[in-house]
């Protein structure tokens, strides 16, 4: 019954480009899908491992920049007379490189930031994202700074190029499903149970032999790599990347999606993501000014925490 529902839902999701002939709405759905992947990756850290990472957009941005740069090729002076030159690579390889680069940053941050907990961790994670943004803004030789990276090639597999919206939609959907299954497998494994144990009670989890550093590092690496993959998808879909991909507000969007949908549930980020991905469009359709939209966003966030502190999915399950 449940499996049938999931399959029917997937078929419905896959059929959308066939009957929806509004390119703008399809674009909104693609971007929403990319953000859902990022929100799912954040959920692994926030919902399962219990670490409120407010720098998650850094991994998204690093994935986007790394993938875009690898596909465009670049040369950069590491020292005044040492030049690192990288030739343009095929896009699928670049996207993989973006994913790996984000994962490696996740490992590094995991080692450094998990020396601290709670409010300190939150602020350190924000700092990391902010440093990443300032590097993207100032290292003009590599990133073009505020001029942005332009003309990023779209994904091409043999002779097929992902130029149009429908194929990009299916690509995002496919990556999303893969990420969903990966997270599902991970959280139901021994390592996943160790994460949940850590989130519930760190001292108790340690006492029964959970390796704190390793478990958190694993969660961060997987989560960062997935966010990086989402970033790479984004870069090759919109085909322009500027330092604004690191803005704190995107992290906030991901956090709202996870918390509203239900942190620590598999379906939570998907439900929250669809809601908050489409909500701005609904508000825009109601001819509300962008500032007022954001005010509604903020107020809604407060209301959700007050009235649905565990999120929509657990609330439905209980009811």
């Amino acid at each position, binding site marked *: 019954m449940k499996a049938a529902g999931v399959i029917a839902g997937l078929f419905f999701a896959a059929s959308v480009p066939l009957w929806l002939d509004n390119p703008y709405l399809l674009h909104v759905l693609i971007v929403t899908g990319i953000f859902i992947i990022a929100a799912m990756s954040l959920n692994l850290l926030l919902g399962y491992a219990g670490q409120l990472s407010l720098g998650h957009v850094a991994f998204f941005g690093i994935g986007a920049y790394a993938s875009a740069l690898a596909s465009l090729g670049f040369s950069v002076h590491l020292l005044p007379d040492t030049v690192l030159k990288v030739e343009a690579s095929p896009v699928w390889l670049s996207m993989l490189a973006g994913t790996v680069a984000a994962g490696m940053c996740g490992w590094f941050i995991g080692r450094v930031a998990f020396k601290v907990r709670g*409010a300190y961790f939150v602020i350190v994670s*924000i700092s990391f994202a902010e440093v990443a943004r300032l590097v993207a803004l100032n290292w003009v030789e590599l990133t073009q700074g505020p001029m942005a990276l332009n003309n990023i090639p779209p994904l091409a597999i043999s002779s097929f190029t992902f130029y149009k919206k429908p194929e990009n939609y299916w690509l995002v959907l496919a990556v999303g499903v893969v990420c969903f299954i990966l997270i599902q497998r991970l959280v139901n494994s021994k390592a996943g149970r160790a994460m949940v144990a850590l989130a519930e009670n760190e001292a108790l989890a340690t006492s029964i032999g959970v390796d704190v550093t390793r478990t958190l590092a694993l969660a961060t690496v997987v989560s960062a790599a997935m966010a990086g993959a989402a970033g790479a998808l984004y870069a090759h879909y919109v085909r322009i990347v500027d330092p604004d991909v690191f803005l704190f507000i995107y992290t906030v969007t991901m956090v709202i999606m996870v918390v509203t949908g239900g942190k620590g549930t598999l379906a939570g980020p998907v439900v929250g993501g669809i809601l908050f991905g489409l909500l701005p469009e609904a508000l825009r359709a109601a001819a509300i000014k962008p500032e007022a939209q954001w005010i509604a*966003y903020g107020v809604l*966030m*407060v209301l959700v925490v007050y009235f649905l502190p565990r999120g929509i999915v657990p609330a439905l399950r209980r009811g």
Partner: protein
Amino acid sequence: MDQFLQHCLNAVMLGGTYALLGIGLTLIFGIMKVVNFTHGELYAFGAYMMYMLVMRTGMDFFAALVLAIVLGVILGALLELVLLRKLRGADIDTTMLVMIGAWIALQNTEQLAWTGVAVSINNPFPAAPLVIGPVSVAWNRVFVFFTAIVLIFATYALINHTKLGRAMRATFQDSDTAALMGVRIGNVNTATFAIGSGLAAAAGALLGPVFVAYPSMGDLAAEKAFAIVILGGLGSIPGATIGGFILAFVEELGAGYISSGYRDAMGFLLIIVILLFRPTGLFARKERIG
């Protein structure tokens, strides 16, 4: 050498306001265990109140400054009563999410009210700088610095020498025991949030006329305040005071001798470096390691 002295003087002038921002944030965290994301918006609010009072109604600059700070205190008290009063005892993530929501709503309300265009605020100080030997400093910055110092001392005096201050210190040490001794924790929290917000508004009201006021000005201020309190240790008022000056020196010298583009990154890099080599922070407190 002259250039170095000038950088140091600039850093001291800037440090006063940074300390003010940091103290407000650290006070709220220490006593209420709330990471206050609206801190930057109170800073912006202070600057915009100066704009409204000085530029729109033509009020006297100094009277406007006092009124802007009072309005900041009132807004802080309202925020606490409406948003945080019911969440007392909730975990830190919950209050943090509520404060993020409030921050988004406040910032966009500012944008709606005053548009995104930056506004400048006149000040009554002479345009010619004060020249001391090889270095010089603008008069309005001298005023900002001394006002900030006065406010910092006033905060210290309030905390160390008044009945409210004693209640705040007791709550900081152990809120359950303080409650048993008859401290009304709810009122202490409201007062703390109001004072912290007032300090942020004061920093904004002081720096608004030096620079310009724009709706997202609070983001950078909040980020710097976070860096300062991490340096000094969350909840430590002397730490925030020293941290404010440290950040100002690092930024000023870093911008002067390394790269001005990375000026705003200095504080964050400092945090990351400190965590790499000394995870307990400069002013160690036990709680920060899980």
